[in-house]
């Protein structure tokens, strides 16, 4: 028993280490002095951080990506939570089957999604616009939010809503005062997934973003065709660090919120 246990945990540890490897080696690569991506780096320097932070085009792309990721995560959270709430309370089979549509963005191969969005945008003039980017990422984020919130709602005891409504509160107040605080961790995890998916989204951005409104990933992809240098490692390290801090803050918030 103990032997099989230790074999199991040993194997799991190996898998987890393997998962971490690329994430971990990117940080030292970003401090490299070499013009090419190399590991281990031959010498150390901050030049790739300077190359990134001192370049107006990179900064503009970063701004675009952050605005798109935050805006689309927030909008997807609102729309996705509303949709999940509706799906949860309905007794109609037909309506429940509609949820298949909401999961399409996750299961349709991303290139096909990109082609679809490109086609729509080319016809309505949303190519290379901020609105277009945000809308597309709202759609891609919806499945994550709906999934997370539905899971939260399923754990939530509907009797609590009944009680509060029998006390005379209307549906909206009940939702915000009784339901939302309890499903908050689910909503936050949905938001986070929508945020990451928007920040990391590359394929759709390749098709629909351009000009002034290029996302960071699109710029990285085209820059990599031009030069494979450690700038992308520097960008990635900074982004990982930023998101990490964000998650820490949010999970701290979620925990204290839950205790209250």
């Amino acid at each position, binding site marked *: 028993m103990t032997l099989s246990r230790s074999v199991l945990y040993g194997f799991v540890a190996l898998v987890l280490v393997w998962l971490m490897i690329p994430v971990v080696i990117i940080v030292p690569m970003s401090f490299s002095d*070499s*013009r*090419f*991506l*190399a590991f281990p780096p031959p010498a150390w320097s901050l030049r790739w951080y300077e190359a990134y932070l001192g370049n107006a085009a990179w900064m503009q792309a970063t701004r675009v990506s952050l605005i798109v990721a935050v805006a689309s995560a927030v909008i997807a959270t609102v729309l996705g939570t509303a949709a999940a709430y509706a799906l949860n309370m309905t007794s109609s089979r037909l309506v429940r089957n509609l949820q298949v549509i909401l999961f399409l963005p996750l299961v349709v191969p991303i290139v096909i999604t990109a082609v679809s969005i490109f086609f729509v945008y080319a016809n309505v003039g949303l190519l290379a616009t901020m609105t277009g980017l945000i809308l597309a990422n709202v759609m891609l984020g919806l499945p994550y939010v709906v999934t997370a919130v539905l899971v939260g709602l399923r754990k939530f005891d509907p009797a609590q809503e009944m009680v509060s409504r029998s006390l005379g509160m209307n549906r909206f107040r009940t939702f915000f005062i009784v339901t939302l605080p309890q499903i908050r961790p689910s909503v936050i995890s949905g938001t986070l997934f929508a945020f990451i998916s928007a920040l990391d989204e590359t394929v759709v951005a390749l098709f629909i973003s351009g000009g002034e409104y290029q996302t960071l990933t699109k710029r990285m992809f085209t820059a990599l*065709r*031009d*030069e*494979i240098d450690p700038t992308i490692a520097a960008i990635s390290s900074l982004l990982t660090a930023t998101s990490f801090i964000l998650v820490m803050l949010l999970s701290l918030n979620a925990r204290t919120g839950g205790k209250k």
Partner: protein
Amino acid sequence: MRMKFTTVALLSSVAMLAAGAVQAQQITFVSQGGAYQEAQTKAILNPVAELLGITIRQDSSPDAWPVIRTQAATGKPIWDVIDTPTKDCIRGGEQGFIEKLDFAQIPNASDLPDDYKSPYSVAYEFYSSVLAYNKDKYGDKPPQGWADFWDVEKFPGTRALRNHPLATLEAALIADGVPRDKLYPLDVDRAFRKLGEIKPHITVWWTSGAQSAQLLADGEADLVMAWNGRVAAVEKEGAPVGYTFNDGLLQFTSLCILKNAPNPDTAVKFVNAALTPEIQANFPTYIDYGPANPAAYDTGKISPERAAQLPSSPANAAVQALVSEEWWSSPEGEEAQRRWASFIQR
């Protein structure tokens, strides 16, 4: 005080508008971006702007062709002059997106050989697909041309070619014994047959210039067909990499003007000025690509040592083959490109 400031601002903006109306000469120039566009901004665009007293607005597009088509479709393009693979100028001209050039107004173009011109385009700068190799691996017996690239007995090692038929088919034919000046029209079947021989020995079919440089710098591939500027950059970083212009496939990008361009007259003036020998001779100061105007080599601005590193210098051009963009934009060329994908995957 506040009133006064507004008045001043108003007046000065009116003045600026008036000045703008006088100095209306401007064009939008499009190139392929990155280090290449930065280099030519210093080498060509700034001197030309000064020479003509015009404003050059820049845009960049690594693959201009779809954009050209889209702009042409609207009938009101926003670009004037593009620096793009010659093929796009020619097929664009044939499909009515690109204006015919009036060479009477481009006197500087008379320095260029006829091969460098088409009714729609004129050569702008040269690069070459050369054979690059790992110096550590081959020591004092480096490969000399495509026949050596194909010789896996004499030159063992990993190989990389571009995942694109242009220049690659030519290399295969040269390796198969076709003389450099008798390549066209390409014998496509023969080229693919010859490529089939080397295919099992190719470790990477690269898709971007950056990738070919990384392959050389990391020693991932010992023999690589790569663009000369890329190889030179890797060499400068101290990697043990060498290359030869022998059997190199000389290519050039061209300048062409969009049909219904917003500033057609200034565009023609720009094209002529960009071909000025003295200005063309600035290219090698900033990047390892060669001037298109051979007269640039007579200006004294390019040292003999530097000329030896440039693809278009007379001595180097003599040992290379000039890629025919005209053939590649012909139906046979388009068909060869279609055949490529199934060749690679099979």
